[in-house]
Every structure is written in structure tokens, then in C-alpha cells.
């Protein structure tokens, strides 16, 4: 079964077409990345799959569950990390993780395991007991990413997962995402950092102005466009399709 299936998905805001008839799918245990510049429609697509937004037309499925018709079933399978997500500032990092685990399961054993996984990933040491309002941007992002994957969801939807992190933390997060995928988690992520995506993802989708232009592995796309990296692939695709960047 496909982790994600998207068919002719359209999302409009008035006259603006944020997503303009895209199709793609994500296989089980695969890391699929949507890449494109700011305003390409990446986040809107992820928000539709996370059941936050409703599509204007077209269909989207998560493990066979329609996001529009059966969002409750979808929410049980996914975990979503928004790009500019925040956490409850009055809570400590530990209290936040416990609160979020409580929302996903009533099983205290599973809850404890999830919090332990998150503590390992967040790696905040004693600062985990501090109030979140005292965290740096990087610390908050690590906590949020840990929260997003601690329940080992079937599909993790991560919008710009390394946004705001320094090089060392970003590399660490990429490694964590890769390991989790190997353990059976499907990942759909977005990024405008094409070098990061090349390292991290199994397949990529090139999206711009709401349209999907290319889908394939980084190697396939580079070969097809005779490019050294994904940035060059993107520029070549833009030239072929006469897209103004």
C-alpha cells in the first residue's frame, strides 16, 4: 500500500492557486521530499495531507484513507511538524513531551517509551526541565522534531525539518530521520535546501507555483538533466518549462 497518494490536487485561495493539480505518491518506508522555492506550494500540500487544510478539488490519501472524507483515521497514522511550529511556552520541555504523548495514546508503557525516544532525539540534557520560553530557536526545533517522531507514526510529515538549526544540529536531525525511515516510518518532507534533500531523500518532487514538474530519485533527475546537483536540475527544469524564478 502507498503511504501517500495525491491525485490532481488543487487548493485555491480566491484567485490564487496555491496548489495547481499535482499528482505524486510516497511508498512505504520511503523518504519523499518536495523541493521548490518559497511560495511553491510545498507547505500547502503538506497541510492538506496533515488534515489542516481541505483541498479545493482532487484527492489525497494516507494509507488509503481519504484526507477529506476521513480525517480522523488519517490523524491516527500521521505526525505533522509545521515549518514555524511553536510549543506551549508555559510548559517545560518534559511536560510538553508528556502532554503530546498523552494525546496519542492511553497506554502508559507506550507513553513512557515515546517520551524516552523523544528525550534521546531532543538531547537537551537537564534543560528539558526548563520552561520552553527559555529555549533557543534551535532547542525548540529539536524538541518539536522529537515530538513529531516519538510516537513512531506510520507517516511523518515534516515541513522544513532543519529550519533554524545550525550545521551540526541539522546533520544530526537528518541522520535521525534516515534511521527512523529504516525502522519503518514513511517520511514526506519539504525543503528549499536542495543539497540537504539530495542527501536525505529517496525520491524528490520538484514543485513550483503549485505545479509538479519532475519526480524521481536525485540520481535519475541529475542524469536526465546532465546536472551535478539538484539545484542545477531545478534550474534546468525551470528553463525547459519556461518558468520565471
Amino acid at each position, binding site marked *: 500500500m502507498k503511504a501517500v497518494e495525491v491525485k490532481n490536487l488543487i487548493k485555491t*485561495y480566491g484567485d490564487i492557486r496555491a496548489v495547481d493539480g499535482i499528482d505524486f505518491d510516497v511508498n512505504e518506508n520511503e523518504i519523499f521530499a518536495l523541493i521548490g522555492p518559497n511560495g511553491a506550494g510545498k507547505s500547502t500540500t503538506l*497541510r492538506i495531507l*496533515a*488534515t*489542516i*487544510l*481541505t483541498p479545493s478539488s482532487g484527492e489525497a490519501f494516507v494509507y488509503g484513507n481519504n484526507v477529506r472524507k476521513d480525517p*480522523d483515521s488519517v*490523524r*491516527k497514522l*500521521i*505526525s*505533522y*511538524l*509545521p515549518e*514555524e*511550529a*511553536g*510549543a*506551549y*511556552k*508555559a*510548559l517545560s520541555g518534559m*511536560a510538553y513531551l508528556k*502532554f*503530546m504523548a*498523552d*494525546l*496519542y495514546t*492511553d497506554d502508559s508503557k507506550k507513553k513512557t517509551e515515546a517520551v524516552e525516544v523523544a528525550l534521546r532525539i531532543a538531547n537537551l540534557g537537564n534543560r528539558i526541565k526548563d520552561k520552553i520560553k527559555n529555549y533557543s530557536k534551535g532547542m525548540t526545533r529539536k524538541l*518539536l522534531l522529537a*515530538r513529531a517522531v516519538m510516537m513512531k507514526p506510520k507517516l511523518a510529515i515534516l515541513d522544513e525539518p532543519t529550519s533554524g538549526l545550525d550545521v551540526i544540529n541539522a546533520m544530526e536531525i537528518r541522520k535521525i530521520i534516515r534511521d527512523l525511515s529504516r525502522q519503518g516510518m514513511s517520511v514526506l518532507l519539504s525543503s528549499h535546501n536542495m543539497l540537504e534533500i539530495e542527501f536525505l531523500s529517496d525520491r524528490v518532487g520538484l514543485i513550483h507555483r503549485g505545479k509538479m514538474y519532475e519526480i524521481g530519485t536525485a540520481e535519475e533527475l541529475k542524469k536526465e538533466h546532465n546536472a551535478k546537483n539538484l539545484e542545477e536540475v531545478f534550474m534546468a527544469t525551470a528553463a525547459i518549462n519556461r518558468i520565471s524564478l
Partner: protein
Amino acid sequence: MKKFFILVKKEIRELLTPQMLIPLLVVVLIFNFVGKIIGKEVKKSQVPQPIEIIDLDRSAVSQSVIEIIKKSNFAPNVTIENKKEEILAQARQKKEKAMLVIPAGFEKGIKNFEPQKIEVYNIMRNFSVTGSRDAAILNAAIAAINEVLSNQLISQAILGKDPGQLKRPVLTNEFVMVGEKTANISAAAVSGFIASQTTFIPIILFLIIVFASQMIATSIASEKENKTLETLLSTPVSRKFIVASKLFAAGFVALITAVVYLFGMRNYMTSMTGGSGTNLDGATKNAIIELGLQFSTYDYVLLGLSLFFGILAALAISFILGSFAQDTKSAQGVVAPLMILILVPYLLTMLLDFSSLSPLVRNLVYAIPFSHPFLAAPSLLLNQYQNVWLGIGYLAFFFIVAVIIASKIFSTERIFTLRLKFKKSNFKIGK
């Protein structure tokens, strides 16, 4: 259901922050502090106040004037020398409140039925309530002097007659009718009793509704501002639980806040009045019971229901309004129309006789859901149970509709897309 309580706990922790608790405690402490200061001043004014009296008549009548002044809680310092300026300066120095001068020939003039003038010097140092209170007490003492002297004169002129009867040949025996019940009591006594029983109800209601509305709107706006709402809405938790937990937590915290404020206010009021409260004499108490003007258990239940649904309706409307706010600052602005809706019935029921309003205005006020809790207490005292039940029904209906709308907003992407748009006007300066 467990998830509901987890969400409630989180909401309460988010609402009960030091930023919210510290000002609350400070206000209560200020109430206490000011109340104690005023209480001390009131107690001080209850001690006999020193007053200077220059008795230039030195007669039996002038002596009886001094006695009446003494009985009126003053401690007169009597001088018989005519050193007005000097004694006035001394009185000012000793921070005394007043000086009286009884002129020579006072007794003779009184006995000859000639009006006499006592010079009264009020030494004013401030224009506060306690300052004017001393002057009022002195005026009451002068009125008592007039009463005693006129009684003496009438007794002398018309032997064997009671001066009281002559001065007030017509007496009243007041009855008050409430509904079909009648009792031998004055209307002023009934109004005073009702005011003492119901004054706090609209204040409590007003405070709770205002606090609750602001809290729930801030709670939603804060989730949007801190970018936590998207994460919360992507979790496998029923959105109805999320809505209900926010309503419950805001209502609970508002209730605590209102109780704390009221505790502070009660301390303040008790200090002001010296804890006298309303002590009814036996006859008045019996008359009040005869008129059925005391709340029964059933009345309290209905009053509670009306307050409860009033708060719920306010919470649900604030929830909808809060959905339009993008941040905590704008949250205060979006609930402003609701504040006006609450303020209108609050002021109308406090200041006006609601039944005397024109039908149009009365129906407009009835249309405001928050009018009904304010009107419940007087309606219950007047045994107008039907009005109270209709009000509760209207509030419940309003609450259900508002919750359905709020849930619809929260169940869709409208919670992210709703916002107030104000078009900027373009000003062009032409030649």
C-alpha cells in the same frame, strides 16, 4: 474523556501564568490595603471629635445646646471669652473640625420667639467623603438642637400638648404590596433590603463574563500566535474535545479570578462599613418574609442556572470572536463588541426600572442574551418564574447555536483563514 481532562489541565496551566496571577494578587492586596486605611479613618471618625464652642450667653439654654452637641459624638471645648480669631487659629492648629459661637442674648431671644443665629465655622482640610461626613454630622447636631428647642417653645406656648403631634399632625402607616402579598413596611426599607441582597449579583456576573471572554479569546489567539494550533489540530484528538476543554478551562479560571476579586472587594467594603452589614430588626424581617422577598432554594437553583448559561453563552461567543484574532493583542479587540453587549444590560438593570422602558427598548434588551442573568434576581424576588425560565431557555439555545458555529469553525480550515479585514482608505491630495 481522559484526553479532555489532559487538554483542560494544559489550558489551565497556560492560562494561570505568573503574568496573570501577579496582577490579580496585587489588586487583591491593594483592595485590602486601601480598605484597611479607610477602615482606620472611619474608626477614627467614630471617636468623639473635638470641637470649639464659644458660649457668650452662659445660660441654661446655651448649656442644653452644648449637651446636645456632646450627645452627637463631639467633645466640646467650651470657652466663655469672646476671642473668636484666636480660638479659631488654635482649632486649626489642633486639627479640629469646627467651631460654634453661641451669641450673647441667645436664651432671651429664644424665649421671645426671635430666631437666633449660631455661627458655625467648618474647618475644611480636604474634600473627601470622610471630610464631608464630619460637616454632615454637625448639621445633624444643629437639626437636633432645633428640634429640642422648638419642642420646648411649643410646650411653653400650648400647655398640655405633645409638640411632636403638633409638628406632625399627619402620620403614615406604610404598606408594601409585592405581587399579591402585602406587608406593613416602608418602601424605602424594602428597597434597601433588596439592594443589599442583590448588589453583588450583577458585579459577579459582569466580572466572570468579562474575564471568561477575554481568556478564551486570548487562549485561541495565543495558539495561533505561538504556532501551536496546527500541531494540536493534527493530533488524533476530537476537535469537539479541544473546543470543550478551552471553554471549560476559561470558565474555571474566570470563576477563580472573579472569586478572588470579590474576596478583595468584600474585604474592602467590610473595612469601609466597619462590618456592620444589614442587620434587620424583627418587624422588618417579618415583613420581608411576608412579602416573599427572600431567595428560596429553588430561587437559588434558577439563579445559578441563569448565571451558568449566561457564562456559557459568553464563552461560546468569545470563542467565535477569538477565532478572528491573529494574536493575543488583537484578541482583546475582537471581544470588545461582546463587552458592550454585557455592559448595556448591566447598566440598565442597575440604573433603571426595566419594566418602565418602552416595549421596543425592552425587547431589544431581551434580545441580548446577557440581559437575562442580570434580570433573573429581581424577577425571582417578584415571583416572575416564567420570565426566568424563558431567559434560561433563550440562553441555552443561544449557547448551543454558538457552540455549533464554534465547532464548525474549529473543524475546518476557517480557524486559520478567518480574520478581520480593514481596508485602508487611500487619501489623495489633489492640486
